């Protein structure tokens, strides 16, 4: 199997308005690689939701995007508080985001459900007080 192409991003936790820089950049990179626009849309939206989550809940984190021949893998890691109840967090409409986030148009409880629906696979590894790593995969074939 040929080697993956890797893109690494640091998501700044202080600046809510800059959330999305990484997703917009990955969108451009994938376009340059000739990836199908429908796939790019799914990858960049899922990643944007993940970025926003990291800014809201975890003071930022990192994103690694690995582009393989047959799939795109996104690994979002943070050292935030962890997710207390993953099942609940996955429910549409459930949110623990503070009010100021809602005034910016987020915190509708759609982030994780969107991430799941836009990807072919999503795994959440979380530990209270340690952090959360979310791995998402979008198949290319």
């Amino acid at each position, binding site marked *: 199997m040929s080697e993956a192409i890797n893109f690494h991003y640091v998501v700044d936790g202080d600046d*809510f308005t800059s959330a999305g820089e990484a997703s917009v950049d990955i969108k451009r990179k994938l376009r340059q690689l000739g990836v199908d626009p429908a796939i790019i849309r799914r990858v960049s939206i899922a990643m944007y*939701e993940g970025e926003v989550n990291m800014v809201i809940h975890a003071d930022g984190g990192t994103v690694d995007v690995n582009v393989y021949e047959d799939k795109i893998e996104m690994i979002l890691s943070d050292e935030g508080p962890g997710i207390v109840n993953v099942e609940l967090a996955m429910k549409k409409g459930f949110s623990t985001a503070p009010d100021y986030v809602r005034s*910016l*148009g987020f915190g*509708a409880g759609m*982030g994780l459900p969107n991430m799941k629906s836009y990807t072919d696979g999503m795994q959440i590894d979380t530990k209270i007080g340690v952090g959360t790593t979310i791995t998402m995969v979008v198949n290319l074939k």
Partner: protein
Amino acid sequence: MTVKELLKLDEFEAVNISDDSRIIKGGYCGDLLSWVMGRAEEDNVFVTIMVNVNVIAVASLINVSCVVICENAELSDELINAAKQKEINLIKTPLASFEACACLSNLINA
């Protein structure tokens, strides 16, 4: 309908236009950005009263044909600069979301 055609109407005022030949195929109205991301489609007009810069990021990710900001909500330089940088067609209107959508719907289906 193209963005250029939309701008012929007095109610819709250009704030930043990067490509007025973009075709508007349907639309989506909403202020909760995750809903918008989940539902809006490429080449839609995105109608909202939200004016923070995340609107531009969402518009860019979905690749909408234009964003219409309703009720003449005040636009910051930061928002306008983000639209310029990301080449997003940004339009404002005094109409409320409901009226703007009714108007746009008539135009799109004409």
